[in-house]
């Protein structure tokens, strides 16, 4: 069951990457990156159990915190002048990334 859950998480991560590459706007990509990060936390915890090394959980905790701070940082940065695409609609969002 652990292996099955790991594979499911990997599939979800692949779907998230698809959305990150497709995503019409900048914020879709940020959402995809954030979700990829939270799924990585789950994947690390699962892998720790699959390999029988629960020390991996420390890495998962650190990863959760770093993911949070990096997403908030990118969002803060995206507010600043010059980072935003000139007019944000479905077609022109591509340039922003």
């Amino acid at each position, binding site marked *: *069951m*652990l292996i*099955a*859950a790991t594979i*499911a*998480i990997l*599939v*979800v991560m692949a*779907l*998230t990457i*698809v*959305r990150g590459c497709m995503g019409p*706007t900048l*914020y*879709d990509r*940020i*959402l*995809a990156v*954030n*979700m990829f990060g*939270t*799924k990585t*936390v*789950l994947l690390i*915890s*699962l892998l720790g*159990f699959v390999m029988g090394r*629960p020390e991996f*959980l*420390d890495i*998962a*905790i650190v990863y*959760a*915190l770093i993911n*949070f701070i990096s*997403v*908030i940082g990118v*969002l803060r940065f*995206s*507010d600043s002048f010059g980072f*935003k695409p000139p*007019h*944000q609609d479905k077609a022109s*969002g591509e340039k922003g990334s």
Partner: protein
Amino acid sequence: MMDIALNISSAICLFLGSFLCLSGGVGIIRFPDFYTRMHAAGVTDTLAASMILIGLMLQNPDAIVISKLVMILLMTLFISPTTSHAMAKAAMNSGLLPLLDKKENKDGVKSS
């Protein structure tokens, strides 16, 4: 006997968590715009993560491991609404308009 019960409940939790995660992943592909996709991401952040972590907790009797899993769970639950709100607000501030339901617009219920 106890072991078997724990294993079965852990397997059920892991299965539910994987299913919810997959649903969130499908939702993030299928939904039409950013704001609706955010709700799909919310599913994977709340119940799916809790289910998988609870499933892992039932696998290991070690107190340290359980406390670390509880910590990860609490962090996920505290961090996820903050990030969602920050993303929604940043998107709204940059002028990304949500795709609203047609019926609502016609009735004039739509606000700001």
